[in-house]
């Protein structure tokens, strides 16, 4: 389990990084950020990049900051940066809540938010969160900057619309209204494992009924996405067991779950129902 040989590049600026990536992408040149998914894949020799462009030394990529109404998360911001809220209000608290379910503490010291999203593992918690929040993915290459809405970003299991010469430079999370309620619930067999399914939810209450409901499901399908049917089941309803159960049923019906040797589609569907309801219950607290 020793990685295959590669050439190592350590650019100091974004321009250098994208230039190197542009030059070496045809030889399977790739970005190395936290490496917590890429390096194991290389250890199994399932990935054998010819070049790695290590962006850990690139100035400015480790910033997480509020720009206008967006929270902008740079490519080298580690999961651990979210252990404490990065901003006041429900979003900062929510990211701190979700980060606890991501792998384990030492992995979170090194792995990055953007790396997780670029890797596009369907069971990634951050993928569910960016789907939930309708984030914008900012890609940069020598050809310039490109903004990709999250709905167009995830293409399938570990597949995205990022071009091979594009660096996922940052992710912009729209900061929701201050009265937004959030919930997150996942199921895995051991602490820290990839979840078999997860539900990320948010809504606001206006005049006693649910407004602006978002429900994103991860882990169950080949990509994380919002489930419109479940959101419709919530909109305008009074928050409580009936609406939550209806939304949970709608989510379970709407998803097209993956199946593998360990997990049946039916089990995943059932988990989606349970986790959606539990995430909504959590949001009321």
């Amino acid at each position, binding site marked *: 389990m020793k990685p295959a040989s590669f050439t*190592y590049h350590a650019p100091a600026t974004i321009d250098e990084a994208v230039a190197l990536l542009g030059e070496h992408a045809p030889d399977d040149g790739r970005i190395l950020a936290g490496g917590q998914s890429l390096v194991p894949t290389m*250890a199994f020799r399932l990935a054998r990049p010819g070049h790695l462009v290590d962006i850990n030394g690139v100035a400015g990529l480790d910033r997480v900051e509020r720009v206008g109404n967006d929270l902008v998360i740079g490519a080298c911001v580690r999961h651990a940066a979210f252990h404490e809220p990065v901003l006041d209000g429900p979003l900062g608290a929510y990211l701190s809540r979700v980060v606890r379910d991501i792998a384990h*503490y030492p992995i979170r010291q090194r792995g990055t938010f953007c790396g997780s999203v670029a890797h596009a593992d369907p069971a990634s918690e951050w993928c569910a969160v960016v789907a939930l929040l309708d984030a914008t993915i900012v890609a940069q290459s020598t050809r310039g900057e490109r903004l990709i809405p999250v709905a167009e970003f995830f293409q399938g299991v570990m597949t995205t619309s990022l071009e091979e010469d594009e660096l996922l430079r940052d992710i912009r999370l729209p900061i929701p209204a201050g009265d937004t309620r959030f919930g997150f619930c996942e199921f895995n067999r051991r602490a820290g494992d990839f979840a078999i399914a997860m539900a990320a939810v948010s809504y606001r209450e206006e005049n006693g009924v649910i407004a602006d409901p978002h429900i994103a499901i991860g882990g169950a399908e080949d990509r994380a996405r919002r489930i419109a049917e479940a959101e419709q089941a919530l909109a305008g309803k009074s928050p409580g067991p009936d609406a939550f159960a209806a939304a949970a049923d709608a989510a379970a019906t709407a998803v097209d779950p993956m199946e593998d040797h360990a997990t049946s589609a039916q089990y995943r569907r059932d988990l989606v129902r349970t986790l959606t309801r539990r995430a909504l219950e959590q949001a009321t607290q």
Partner: protein
Amino acid sequence: MTEDIKKDITLSLNGRDYQLTVDPRWTLADVIREHCNQTGTHIGCEHGVCGACTVLVDGDPIRSCLMFGVQADSKAIRTVEGLAKDGKFHPLQEAFMESHALQCGFCTPGFLMLAAGVLEKDPAISDEDLEDILSSNLCRCTGYVNIVKAVQTVRDKMGRDQKRSA
């Protein structure tokens, strides 16, 4: 392998600088073990799950199998060999022995470094958070009960000492 892909780095390991020429594909774990001859950092899975290779990089506990040695250039690495000071064991090492927190000892350096890193960052960490963090590493011998006990003992003692000096 062609020589030109190799890189010169300075690895600061337990306060000592090692000038090395490394193949970029060498993991930090391999560089520490094979090129600095510090074999206390163990390799249990090489895919980042077991935690036996946990070391501190600039104070953060990380899996040294998931980082390349070349990436550790000019960073401060601490391993189990650096825990004891002036011929005296670190309180965690003492507590692991007292609490019978090890059997075969293979996971022990990883747990020690994880615990050392965490207690340095958060000396008053809650039981719940501590257990959450200690669940990062695998042990196949002890059933973990005594590992948790050992780390809690040190945390509690540090807390008392702090109060006393305050």
